[in-house]
């Protein structure tokens, strides 16, 4: 299966391109700050286009919940992001300070992201479905100085944890008409008063730019820090994987609260000068098809969860909707099974190009490319300039596997521009991710004889749900705060729609009886604290949890029992 289109892909000969590719040469396609003052993502995404032939091209088109369509050309986006950068300046935000957003896909989020990058502060977006605990963990661990949010989310979520955030100096409400206090301010008022010109200060390509939190097996979420140089990957993958061509309309359905929604929902399309469509609404199959038609989308980047929902519809979309503009469909977040790849080919007349990457890698690393035959079910081949391998490792040993088809740890060689530079304030966890020059991704995979990579699973207990990661430890710690819960263990239970759902096994304290009512009470408690994106979707009561002799919960055993799979080596299991 290869892509059928009249337009030649930007990358036509994968092997030759890989052979000749050098990251340094990508810089030639970027402008850089004038006078050799460095490299800034926002300059590449906005200002350089605003000063050139694309100035009147629509950069962002927001499809609002109220049905309205709002647009900003590159020239307008330059002014609005300049205002935001000036607002930050007036509030005393300095280079390297962290600015958070906690909002749905509203225009202010995008303006704040790019304005923060202009100011050389660090931007960190939070998913709006988080409850107060995940929000607090991230704001406090990320040293938040400014938070951009809506009045509704502030009242519902942020206010509950505000006292525990002494370092958070300002909260900018996107929809408040007046300032609420010296700390809680109206963003519209500040924006109206701020100048629409801003000169980006000198930016070292290694200056921190973006912070994305991701979950670990143990401990609380980790803040993966990315630098301005990552824009090389954003540009390169936009051009050669998303295959952007001049005049393209692009729609990435991911929320900026997850890394895809920032790298590809904000930066990559703008750096490549195309029109980026943002839909504020959540998934609705019929409306999504109508959006593809109405917006004349050329390139569509979505997720397996959405594709599986579309597969549930018994319609022939090409007969009901005019989808002739759609040239390329891409998917990320979890492996896309072969049946879904084949369904897309049949339904849309174009293959769906699955790809693989993660928060730490900042951009697409392994992909199916328009010019390469798609192997349904495979994540594809490494990006030119990225070396991926399969490794066998133990605590003391690390060996690359060269035999095709053999399963092992998916590892990436250091040195590509969008590689994370740190877990914020957590040097030890950062160091643990590397074996020499190799970054250990935490995923298991295999490589076939032709160099295609195939996802196998996670090497740890992290749960992948609706395309994002949930750490079992953070859920377990919250559950044990419920007065009836003695112990909890959390696993990812396979689910046909969202990959895995968060399932909790709960041991009650003496004196508590299992009941449907208590189950609902614990569910409500967890959802209030963590929000529906993190809280368990299923809770089961158990008499005890399987543990190792050293007291560590054997989540793998719980999962095997849940799925009716062999229980494996039980030599470390504490009996009794």
């Amino acid at each position, binding site marked *: 299966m290869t892509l059928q289109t009249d337009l030649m892909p930007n990358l036509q000969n994968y092997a030759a391109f890989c052979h000749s590719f050098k990251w340094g040469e990508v810089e030639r396609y970027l402008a850089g700050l004038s006078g050799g003052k460095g490299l800034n993502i926002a300059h590449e995404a906005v200002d350089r286009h605003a000063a050139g032939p694309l100035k009147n091209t629509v950069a962002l088109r927001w499809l609002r*919940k109220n049905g309205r369509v709002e647009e900003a050309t590159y020239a307008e986006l330059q002014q609005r992001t300049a205002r935001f950068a000036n607002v930050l300046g007036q509030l005393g935000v300095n280079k390297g300070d962290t600015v958070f957003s906690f909002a749905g896909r509203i225009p202010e989020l995008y303006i704040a992201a790019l304005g923060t990058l202009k100011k050389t502060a660090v931007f960190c977006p939070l998913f709006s*479905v988080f409850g107060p605990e995940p929000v607090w963990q991230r704001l406090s661990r990320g040293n938040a100085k400014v938070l951009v949010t809506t009045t509704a989310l502030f009242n*519902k979520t942020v206010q509950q944890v505000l006292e525990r955030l002494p370092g958070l100096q300002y909260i900018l409400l996107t929809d408040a008409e007046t300032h609420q206090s010296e700390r809680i301010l109206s963003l519209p008022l500040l924006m109206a008063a701020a100048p629409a010109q801003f000169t980006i200060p000198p930016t070292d390509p290694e200056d921190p730019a973006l912070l994305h939190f991701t979950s670990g097996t143990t401990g609380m979420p980790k803040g993966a820090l990315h630098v301005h140089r990552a824009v090389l990957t954003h540009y390169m993958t936009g051009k050669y994987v998303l295959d952007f061509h001049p005049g393209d309309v692009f729609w990435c359905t991911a929320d900026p609260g997850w890394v895809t929604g920032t790298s590809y929902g904000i930066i990559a399309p703008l750096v490549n000068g195309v029109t980026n469509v943002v839909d504020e609404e*959540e*998934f*609705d*199959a*019929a*409306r999504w098809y109508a959006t593809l038609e109405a917006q004349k989308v050329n390139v569509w980047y979505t997720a397996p*969860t959405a594709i599986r*929902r*579309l597969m*549930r*519809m*018994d*319609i022939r979309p090409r007969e009901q909707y005019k989808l002739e503009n759609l040239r390329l469909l891409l998917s990320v977040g979890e492996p896309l099974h072969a049946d879904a790849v084949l369904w897309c080919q049949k339904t849309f007349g174009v293959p769906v190009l699955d790809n693989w990457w993660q928060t730490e890698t900042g951009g697409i690393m392994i992909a199916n490319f328009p010019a390469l035959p798609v192997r349904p079910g495979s994540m594809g081949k490494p990006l030119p300039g990225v070396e991926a391998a399969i490794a066998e490792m133990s605590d003391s040993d690390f060996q690359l596997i060269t035999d095709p088809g053999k399963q092992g740890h998916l590892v990436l060689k250091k040195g590509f521009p969008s590689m994370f530079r740190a877990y914020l304030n957590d040097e030890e966890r950062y160091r643990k991710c590397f074996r020499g020059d190799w970054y250990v991704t935490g995923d298991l995979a295999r490589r076939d004889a032709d160099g295609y990579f195939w996802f196998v699973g996670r090497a740890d207990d992290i749960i992948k749900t*609706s395309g994002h990661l949930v750490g079992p430890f953070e859920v377990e710690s919250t559950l044990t705060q419920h007065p009836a819960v003695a112990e909890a263990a959390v696993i990812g239970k396979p689910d046909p*729609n*969202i990959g895995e*759902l968060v399932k909790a096994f709960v041991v009650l304290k003496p004196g508590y009886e299992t009941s449907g009512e208590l189950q*609902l*009470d614990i*569910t*409500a*408690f967890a*959802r*209030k604290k963590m*929000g*529906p*994106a993190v809280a368990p*979707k299923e809770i089961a009561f158990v008499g005890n949890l399987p543990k190792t002799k050293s007291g560590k919960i054997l989540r793998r055993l719980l999962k095997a029992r849940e799925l009716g799979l062999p229980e494996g080596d039980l030599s470390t299991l504490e009996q009794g």
Partner: protein
Amino acid sequence: MTDADIKTTIFQLLKRIAPDTEPTLLKPNDNIRDTLGIDSFDALQFIIALNEKLGIEIPEQDYGKTATLEQLTAYIKTKER
């Protein structure tokens, strides 16, 4: 079923899926998902539970017609005929 019966069923099922919320406080034109702050998985579970409880079949392409309490109630009544 009367409108009141349908609403009672809707509230019961929503409460089971999202016990942290107060579905009875929903106004007729509130977007159920946004107002209760439930995610897409919860929303799908709710529709599946409605299908099972009421013995109807709301197809995926009609989910957009069931966004508010008023829309959903009206939609269920058309399915009952």
